[in-house]
């Protein structure tokens, strides 16, 4: 068993952070320690394995997709700072408060998580169905999911039309945290609310379903990302949302 300080010294030697003096000291120890050399060989393999993770190129078209989203959908600027990761010390101090807040705001999601709705039939007309909107289409497995986002006077809606075959899991994330209590309207077909939280909702729909979901705060400042799964297949991206009536 290598003492912990020797183990640290070996890591420092291998990741290049050892000072010249530390390096000299560690190498002197290694020269007289078969156990140390054995451990060094193991760590060489570990560092080589870590180095085997390639740094991938960004996917082709990522820049173009971003620019298209900005130009084509008129994504506007916000005066609010972007939410950056909290530093850990602050997080630690605020942890008890955070737990209490999460317990309150997570309630709607837990309600669904503990007892998700069963696949149910939806029927009836979709409010605002005649309104214009922006339609996008996604292929996932055997299914095709068309999503038309439109607005009426009060809100935005995403109208889903699932065709082809199979069952599709649809996750929407974003919309300014307005997805806590999903308002699914018929349509036709079979739809299930799998879960919902402050910033996301997961639905499951069988091919043939057509329904609408209110996404009240969706807009340029509150983009909505859609992820689709059907079996092992996945698709998704940022959902195009028409500009608000104020033209903002």
């Amino acid at each position, binding site marked *: 068993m290598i003492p912990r300080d020797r*183990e640290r010294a070996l890591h420092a030697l291998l990741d290049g952070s050892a000072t010249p003096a530390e390096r000299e000291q560690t190498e002197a120890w290694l020269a007289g320690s078969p156990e140390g050399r054995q451990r060094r060989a193991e760590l060489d393999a570990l560092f080589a394995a870590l180095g085997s993770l390639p740094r991938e190129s960004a996917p082709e078209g990522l820049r173009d997709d971003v620019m298209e989203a*900005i130009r084509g959908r008129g994504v506007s600027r916000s005066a609010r700072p972007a939410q950056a990761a909290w530093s*850990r010390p602050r997080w630690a101090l605020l942890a008890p408060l955070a737990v209490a807040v999460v317990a309150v705001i997570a309630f709607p999601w837990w309600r669904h998580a503990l007892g998700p709705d069963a696949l149910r039939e939806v029927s009836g007309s979709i409010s605002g169905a005649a309104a214009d909107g922006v339609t996008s289409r996604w292929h996932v497995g055997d299914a095709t999911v068309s999503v038309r986002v439109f607005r009426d006077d009060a809100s935005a809606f995403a109208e889903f039309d699932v065709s082809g075959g199979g069952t599709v899991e649809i996750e929407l994330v974003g919309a300014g945290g307005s997805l806590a209590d999903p308002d699914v309207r018929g349509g036709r077909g079979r739809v299930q609310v799998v879960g919902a939280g402050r910033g996301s909702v997961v639905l499951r729909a069988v091919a043939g379903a057509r329904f609408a979901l209110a996404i009240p705060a969706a807009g340029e400042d509150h983009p909505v990302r859609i992820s689709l799964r059907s079996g092992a297949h*996945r*698709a998704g991206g940022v959902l195009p949302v028409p500009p608000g009536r104020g033209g903002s």
Partner: protein
Amino acid sequence: MIERDEPALVARALEGDTGAFGDIVESHQGVVYNLALRMLNDPEDARDVSQVVFLKVWQHLGTFDKRGRLFSWIYRIALNETLNFRRRRRRHEELDESIPSDDIGPAGAFDADRTSALVREALMELKPSDRELVVMHHVLRLSHREIGELARLPENTVKSRLFTARQRLEARLRRRGFGRS
């Protein structure tokens, strides 16, 4: 990587020059995508997260403190989006089918692809704060000092936490047969 005067690009992007913003995207998309890829272990998810990150960068560029490093600011947004994505995903996800069984084939039979796959799997078992450090140092090739700036941690704390994270990763790799002779 596009090498240009970044403050000038930011200024032009703030004036609405989408071409300048495109150059900012080009400069930083590699780091953002690789961070998301190694934290989420899913190329499609990583691409989606990267896209959302740059939309947020565009939306909030006016709040960027120009005395700071643009890279650090974008990185923190990317890390936050990645962690939020994973938290949301975990709520709904069944057990990941990609987690392998103990049967790893002939002892010592590790080619480069297999080793890389094992490391990716073991990484996903680390807690996010450990995984983040390993990814920053061993994938993004950031120095301890750079990691300290991004994570707002003293350099020695970075070294210490990285040491612990590597030990945890090694333990998980060994459970998969890594290093077995």
